[in-house]
């Protein structure tokens, strides 16, 4: 019985190791690649090389793609990275990439521009981090680009960018008496008809949990990926 037990445990451990190695070591960086801390410390306009995992991407266009990526330490926004249509099809959530580009800042959004990338072995999906308590604080910016959850947000207003469906949707939520601007970025998930219609149809006063990437435009402006109406 003891032997059987030991075998089961050994097998379980072995399986666990295999599973782990298949996903790669999320925290370990290859040679010449910056840690997230080093990336954060890098000056704007300097060249950066990062390894991270694709969390989502906007629609591919004209050999360019905009990617939301993360590792266990933080998140990255890779704006209009050079990418063939063939490679774009491989950038599924979780895919590990090594990207080289230049750190940039556009209206407060820290991003990597003029980047090229290669796909590496590894897989990781960052869980949504509950950042509700950081809304309206200076600490939220430390989580810029992260995948986040904001709980019990009350809808104040909904507006289509071009006054009608077919473009971005701007949603203002209130929480504890303060307004927060969110955006359903059409190129990120405009093709998700259910989500697009749900967000476009939100009514003032409805209370929701909202998931999204903590994008920045002159202040926090998360890109919505999921809304749960309570």
């Amino acid at each position, binding site marked *: 019985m003891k032997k059987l037990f030991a075998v089961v445990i050994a097998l379980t451990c072995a399986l666990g190791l295999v599973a782990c190695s298949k996903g790669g070591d999320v925290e370990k960086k290859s040679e010449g690649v910056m840690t997230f801390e080093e990336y954060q410390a890098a000056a704007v*306009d300097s*060249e950066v090389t990062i390894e991270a995992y694709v969390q989502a991407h906007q629609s591919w266009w004209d050999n360019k793609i905009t990617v939301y990526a993360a590792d266990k330490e933080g998140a990255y926004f890779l704006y209009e990275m050079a990418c063939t249509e063939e490679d774009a099809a491989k950038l599924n959530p979780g895919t590990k990439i090594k990207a080289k580009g230049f750190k940039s800042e556009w209206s407060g959004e820290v991003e990597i521009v003029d980047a090229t990338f290669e796909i590496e072995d590894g897989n990781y999906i960052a869980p949504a981090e509950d950042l509700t308590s950081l809304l309206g604080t200076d600490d939220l910016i430390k989580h810029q680009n992260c995948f986040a959850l904001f709980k019990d947000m009350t809808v104040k207003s909904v507006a289509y960018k071009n006054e009608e469906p077919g473009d971005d949707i701007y949603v203002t939520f209130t929480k504890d008496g303060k307004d927060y601007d969110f955006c359903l970025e059409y190129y990120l998930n405009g093709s998700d008809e259910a989500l697009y219609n749900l967000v476009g149809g939100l009514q003032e006063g409805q209370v929701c949990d909202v998931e999204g990437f903590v994008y920045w435009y002159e202040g926090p402006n998360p890109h919505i990926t999921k809304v749960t109406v309570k």
Partner: protein
Amino acid sequence: MRKKIVCMFLALISAAMLAGCHGSKGMPEFGMPETFDDSRTYNITFWAKNDTNKVQSDIYKKAIADFTALYPNINVNLRLYTDYGKIYNDVITNISTHTTPNVCITYPDHIATYMRGINVVVPLDELAASPAYGLGGSDLRFDGPGSEEIIPEFLKECRLDDKLYALPFMRSTEALYINEDMVKDLGYEVPDVVTWDFVWDLSEKAMKKNADQTFAINGQKVLIPFIYKSTDNMMISQLRQLNAPYSTAEGDIEIFNDTTTDLLMTVADHARTGAFSTFKISSYPGNFLNAGQCIFAIDSTAGATWMGSDAPLSDIAEENKRSFTTVVRPIPQFDPDDPKMISQGPSVCVFNKEDPQEVLASWLFAQFLLTNDVQVAYSETEGYIPVTKKAQDSEEYKEYLSLSGTDSDHYDIKIDAATLLLDHMSDTFTTPVFSGSASLRDAAGALIENVAKASRRGMTVDEAYIAKTYEDVRSLYKLDAAGSLAAKKDNAQPLPFASKLLIVCLIVTWIVMGAVYAYSRFRKAKS
């Protein structure tokens, strides 16, 4: 005799093939109907652009309602865009499926590309000249402008290949929005016409920092003294002011020249110090201007409601705004006595359809957009000006201008921007329009963006770097080495099947003709 018959036969086959191809892929040429058949119902689509401005959308909707009240048998379906590029891409996509809109807000550069399709865009000369339905026509149910009442410079911009392919809808130019307080703090007064040297010099002077690394001029950690929104316009305007080559009317590319190199070296010098940046690199000039982080901001007069510390529209938080005096001037000049500024703004074109009556209905609506009610109302939303003398001279418009600064609808910076263009209509220019001119415009902007970025990144920007940039931009925008322009890569379309078939048939025809000729010569020689 036999030879003649063979030749005639081959010619007939070729003509038939051409006609077949024409009919299968292109549109039939528009023929002007004698009268408008209002016993039928027409559903037309109108693709319009607004500047993320609800008032503009409402004006389009009101124009449609007013038009439909006059023509109840013409239903106009509005589709709104906030981006000219997206309209352009959607039109290109819809040309091959014959699902273009009927009426579309557009730029002449874009129309030149649309015209690659056969009879896709309707030439408007015949429609405009129609005594009954033309400009100011006798059978119109509205008081539209006569052709002589449209500002001639603006109407001329809509002519391509000597034909009228659009009507101007609104016109704007670029303006230099200045934080006058900062200029005074630097010890200067703002001249009536600002020179490039003035802007560069003061921008560098403003870069002085305090011991705590804040900028002395604003006490903040952020300052970009000079930001240009549209770098394609920046390059084009500078070249025009210096009377330097850009392109010929026929589409020969002349932008890669020594003057351009000199201009780029200047951009590099000031981007390196941080005194200059662009929209693409940093963000909207208005955001920095309104936060007291910019002295010289260049943006369209059609963006005037976003400029200045009291701007009715703003993307930055109230607590980040600074109070200062904003003044509006023409863009910087090399020769203040001979100012030159770009003419821009939306035009409206009519797409061809199988049914000429539907085209005529579209034309009636396009023309309705030039009536005073639409012109005055839309121009008041931003620093646009009406394109007709009839609207510009109307009491309503004059009153609007006279109320400058009285409330947010009459925001003084917006009216100053519009007045700037009204005062300088004869100083405006446009660039030649040809198939691919939109790509050349993109390339002009890319030169500045590439050089500015490289400079900011500490790279050496010298003549060798610029030569390499020319090569890269030529390749990216398909501007070949000989100077002629091919289609931009993302617009390049494979030849349609009918075109390929035509080419094959023509080759076969020539081979057959050659064979027949050789055979007849052989027979003749033998006999």
